[in-house]
């Protein structure tokens, strides 16, 4: 369980904080979707729970332990997997090598198991021949699937995604939604997705909207 306590954040000397005293909890086996207007601070919020940045005030706890105590690098390495809108992959290697890199860097259980990675990629329609090509030769949708598979295969229990379908068509978006649901329901992870896409927002288990500096759980 990921818990956000009394989180307050503002940038620089801006007169008004992005949000004050946010208290939220995220459980495993669930897909959370966060919606909100542009500039409301969604990405900023994700960067805190992903351990990429620190809020001005407040704490984040993972199963009762403050993530400050875990250390940001350690937290990212073992606890959280991140999927961005684009540029998720190392461009100088194949899809397979990207996954192998992630397994190795995160010291995951399935580290070094090529076949395991290939099977997972095949499940999302990426055949071996595609998996061994340089990732830049894959389509945007394929690349995004690789990034999600990567989040799936590493040991991290929390998967955070920032507009993962941002530049994908409807067909691809549907496939991605399905994958995120799998992550939560079949792989027992906590999935937190920021999105503009109402299709995705409605397919989450819990929908949170960020309006007027408030997180409102629907």
């Amino acid at each position: 369980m990921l818990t956000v306590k009394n989180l307050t954040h503002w940038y620089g000397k801006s007169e008004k904080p992005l949000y004050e005293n946010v208290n939220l909890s995220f459980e495993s086996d669930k897909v959370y979707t966060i919606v909100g207007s542009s500039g409301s601070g969604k990405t900023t919020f994700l960067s805190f729970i992903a351990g990429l940045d620190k809020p001005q005030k407040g704490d984040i706890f993972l199963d009762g332990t403050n993530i400050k105590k875990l250390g940001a690098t350690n937290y990212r390495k073992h606890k959280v997997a991140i999927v961005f809108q684009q540029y998720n992959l190392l461009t100088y290697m194949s899809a397979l090598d990207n996954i192998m890199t992630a397994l190795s860097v995160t010291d995951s259980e399935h580290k070094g198991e090529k076949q395991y990675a290939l099977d997972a990629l095949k499940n999302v329609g990426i055949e071996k021949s595609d998996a061994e090509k340089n990732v830049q030769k894959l389509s945007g949708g394929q690349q995004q699937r690789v990034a999600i598979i990567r989040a799936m295969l590493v040991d991290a229990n929390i998967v955070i995604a920032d507009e993962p379908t941002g530049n994908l068509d409807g067909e691809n978006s549907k496939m991605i939604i399905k994958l995120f649901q799998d992550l939560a329901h079949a792989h027992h992870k906590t999935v937190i997705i920021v999105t503009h896409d109402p299709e995705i927002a409605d397919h989450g288990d819990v929908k949170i909207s960020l309006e007027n500096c408030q997180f409102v759980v629907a």
Partner: protein
Amino acid sequence: MNYLKRAMLYLTHKKGQSLLLLLIMSAILVFVLSGLIIQNAAVSATNSVTKSAGTTISVSANRNKMFSKMRSGTSKSKPKTITTPTVSNEKIKKAGKLNTVAYYNITNTASVNASSFDTVSTSTGTSGGGMGMKGGASAGDISIDGVSSTKLTSAFVSKTNKIVSGRNITTSDVNTKNVVIEKELATQNGIKVGDSMTVKMTSSGKKSLKLKVVGIYKAKSTSSSVPGSDPSNTIYTSYTLPATITGTEGKSSTVTYILENSAKEKATTKKIKRIINNSSFSVSSDDASYKQLLQPMKNVQSFAKKIVWLVAIAGTIILALIIILSVRTRQREIGVLVSLGESKFHIVAQLFSELFVILIGAMVVALLLGSFVGNKVGNQLLSQQQTTSVSTTSGSNGGPGGSGAPGSSQTGGGMRGGMATQSAGTTSAANKKTLKTLNTSITPSSVIKLGGMGLVIIALAVCVSAISILRLRPKDILIGE
């Protein structure tokens, strides 16, 4: 998939960029290597000059002592003749066997009168006057210069005299009457190699000596500093003959020892002094000219050192800038790794590994090109240095002769000048061989130095760019689109 594998994947994927970096690094290393090669070559050339050319130690009559003896002689009623002090050949040989001595040259002189031939006279009048002035019982019109070997004699070493037919006088001519005469003297009297000629002693009942001509030399300068004696009238023999003529068999008056290694100059001088053990002799070393010859080497050495440093610093700056730029274009890639939880240390290590692989490639290129470039640059440098040093040498030699200070006689000045030229001549010719070319081969130590320099350069460059990696805030890497 650790950072080493990632580095290899990166290099093979970005072939063009890797190749470009390889070329830049190779260029830097070629310069560093040529600097190292030149430096190395200059150092070893300096050492070999120090070893081979060496210092000369001359054992000759102690002039002060001779003159004071002469003065004390004149105070008594009977005028004494100045006898040149001699030392036994055994002692000379014993000193010559010191292992720091490379070789030595014994010199004895005597004066005789031409008998079966005519002397060469330079100009009218002067010749006669000179003879008259010299006068006395001991002066003749032919000077016999006895040496161990003409090859080692300064006039021949400096190429003032040159054998044009026949052979040199060597140590095998000891106790013979074999001679080498000047070309002019030979032509004037129709003497050829293999012919005989007779001279008459100036004392000892004017005994005749039959000399056998084994070689003919040509003297470059026909003018002499001592009026009245034409250099053509100098006959070279083995050092034993003048001793026989002056009645000092088994003894000699002057020896020059040439050292194997100039570094041993002081110790050897001491040892020779102890062996000669005669206060009438002065044992003195002369390494001024050798030091002067080393100057071009030293200049090349320090220049090479500057090249190495300059290129290393410039190379570090260039590489660091390139790497910093490439790190900027690699922000996303770094961001992906950071978001996966890769430590920044490993990211820097990957960068270093990539550069290390390129460094190895660049080393190979540099080693292939470096010896070529080093060779060209090094010898160019050396020839430039030599021209300047030659002009300074001649300048300084002219000095003492010309600057015969007011009061001192013209001849005195001339003599000192002549002596300076002579002593310089003994060493410089030997050096010329070693100084002409630099041995610019690549030694294992220069390869190690190059590798070390390369490592330091990439380490510094990576460190500088690491600062920019470490300063990247993870969120900015990913979100700052």
